[in-house]
């Protein structure tokens, strides 16, 4: 795979640093962040994607935490 820069990561509207190797999938990313997939939605380059969606080539990843209540 062509070497691409790490994607920009935004968690709940705040930029975060992606530590180590870029995660392969949405699920891997959430595991690294210690967030249950049940408690988050992830936008990859603007679109909400399923848990197993691959992150290779993604430029921007936004994690939205699902808060309790409401």
């Amino acid at each position: 795979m062509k070497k691409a820069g790490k994607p920009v990561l935004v968690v709940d509207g705040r930029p975060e640093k992606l530590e180590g190797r870029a995660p392969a999938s949405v699920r891997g990313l959430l595991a690294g962040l210690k967030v249950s997939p049940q408690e988050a939605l992830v936008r990859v380059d603007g679109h909400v994607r399923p848990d197993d969606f691959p992150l290779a080539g993604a430029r921007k990843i936004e994690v939205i935490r699902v808060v309790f209540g409401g």
Partner: protein
Amino acid sequence: MKKTDSSFSCARCKDAACMGSGERARCEKHFKEEFGREVRRTVREFGMIGAGERVAVALSGGKDSVVLLHQLAELKKKLPMELLAILVDEGIAGYRAPTIKVAKRECRKLGVKLHIVSFKSEIGSSLDAVLKKRPARRHGRGAGGHASPLGACSFCGVFRRLLLNKAARRLGADKLALGHNLDDAAQTVLLNLYRNEPARLARFWPVSVESGEGGPARAPGAASAARKPGASPPDFIPRIRPLIRIPEREVALLAELEGYGICHRSCPYAHEAMRQTVRAQLNEMEDRYPGTKKRIFNSWMAMGPAMKKMDEETEAGPNGKKKQTPMGRCSSCGEPSSKEECAACRMRRQFYKHPGR
């Protein structure tokens, strides 16, 4: 870059999926369609809303209640009903104000009248002020710990339910619609087991026709309890839970896809609730064993009628605790209550110098 291979495309139309995998993968369009269908099925199956009824939505401005409001507004196009919204402002600094903004905006969009009632005006103190008066030893029974009966969530819940019921009654509502989702239901089932509260569990149902403190659950498929024209409003406004089959994450997904602009901030007191621990446990189970929440829901549906029958027949109550009496009125405030004095009056006495109102 690879667009979407077949495992990430909608099982219905092959467009890019926003959720699920394989046969369960759905694009935005099909996810939204199926969401609406599930809500309609639930409303129909439990006879939640009769034609022409006045439905008050308990609106907090959070994802669940905003999604519920929009779903009912959509349903209204097929099933004539009168929609209104009630918001309870508990008085939680920094938390409630932004959600009130969302609630006002969404009601304006849909042309739904919003009624706001507050702890301060109805019971004399904001939740923040009441909780400051808590005895010191009550503090710090935090996450994972045993929730004290005088915890923030118990107190808030009792008064929120009281205020919602009173406002719904004053506004002539036939039903009070709550945004409880599948996760809430599965958590409630487990919480009642953890706390040895089978009678409460027996009375918890997608439609409650009497207060959680002592009303029988409505049997599945029972017809809507529509009020006859001219009849006086009942003390207890039946509560309906049209989102009860929908996982919390999917409610959040719909809110995100529809751009409802929900505030993603949790209540500062939420960590005090035992429910949070159960929520985390259930989410871990769901990750390891997908479908766990649905299976708990289905078990609850299957056990409900039998549990209710057992609860009615057993003199002492199935857990050996003293049985609650049929719904009557609180001797202090006159609100519906299964006990001599309602939970709100009991709590009021502990927190305020002046009991009653």
